[in-house]
């Protein structure tokens, strides 16, 4: 009886597991340049299945040969994503295990305060917060600071006459470790034509690492948060605090 029950429950269970795996893969690639490639690969897989079911032997033979070669092409095309995916596998998205929630909130408060003061004065800024993925490469591209984070410090760095105002600052734990850092620019075709360099840098860093980036647009004074290669719109101070809290303490925001 139980065996019959098990054989009935296995197919839907397997489909559910496959659904979850495919969904995670699609979410992982969504919004990146590789997503276009993934769409093409999906069409090829569907064509292969249809050709086999319909008995198109010639087409099926060609596609089988194509798939054999495409394994190498797949590794080359998705090199970066495979590396990132494997690196993130099993990682817990915690801000820093050494920090208490109250300490994280104090940092969030300092950043929020600085961001809103800069928005008021239309001063552009780019603040990256390190999570699990280390930002050593980007820290080395800037000027080492290693100071306790404060709203005043962030504001003074981004003043237009400051020699450090170009590029972004990186926050690790409760320290502002470096300023004037260069971030990788996103080449996401959905964004690259409509957004400025600062936004592309924010997007690029969050595509390649799990960092959270907060930025203020110099032109519009608009505040945005970038995470996992996406922008989260900020409408007010409370929302910014909530989003940062959710992203840094480990829960997911509903908007992502």
């Amino acid at each position: 009886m139980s065996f019959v029950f098990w054989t009935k429950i296995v197919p839907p269970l397997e489909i559910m597991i496959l659904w979850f795996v495919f969904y995670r893969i699609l979410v992982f690639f969504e919004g990146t340049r590789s997503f276009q490639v993934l769409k093409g690969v999906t069409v090829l897989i569907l064509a292969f299945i249809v050709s086999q079911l319909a008995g198109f032997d010639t087409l099926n033979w060609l596609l089988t040969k194509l798939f054999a070669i495409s394994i190498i092409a797949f590794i080359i095309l998705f090199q970066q994503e495979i590396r990132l995916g494997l690196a993130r596998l099993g990682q817990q998205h915690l801000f820093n295990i050494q920090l208490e929630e109250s300490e994280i909130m104090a940092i969030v408060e300092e950043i929020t305060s600085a961001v809103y003061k800069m928005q008021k004065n239309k001063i552009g800024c780019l603040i990256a917060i390190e999570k699990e993925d280390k930002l050593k490469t980007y820290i080395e591209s800037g000027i080492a600071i290693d100071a306790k984070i404060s709203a005043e410090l962030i504001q003074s760095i981004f003043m237009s006459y400051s020699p450090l105002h170009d590029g972004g600052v990186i926050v690790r734990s409760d320290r502002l470790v470096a300023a004037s850092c260069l971030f990788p620019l996103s080449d996401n075709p959905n964004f690259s034509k409509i957004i400025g360099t600062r936004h592309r840098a924010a997007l690029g860093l969050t595509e390649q690492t799990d960092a959270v980036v907060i930025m203020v647009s110099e032109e519009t004074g608009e505040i945005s948060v970038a995470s996992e290669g996406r922008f989260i719109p900020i409408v007010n101070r409370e929302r910014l605090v909530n989003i940062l809290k959710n992203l840094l303490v480990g829960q997911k925001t509903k908007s992502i």
Partner: protein
Amino acid sequence: MKSWFTHNLILKLVALGLAVITWFYVNNELLNQQVR
């Protein structure tokens, strides 16, 4: 709960479609192997 279902709905549907197609395809292949 409602927002979980509606959020990224297209991706969820595409993933479900792929899951169903893959399952039936692989199952068919396994059955063919058993028959041989």
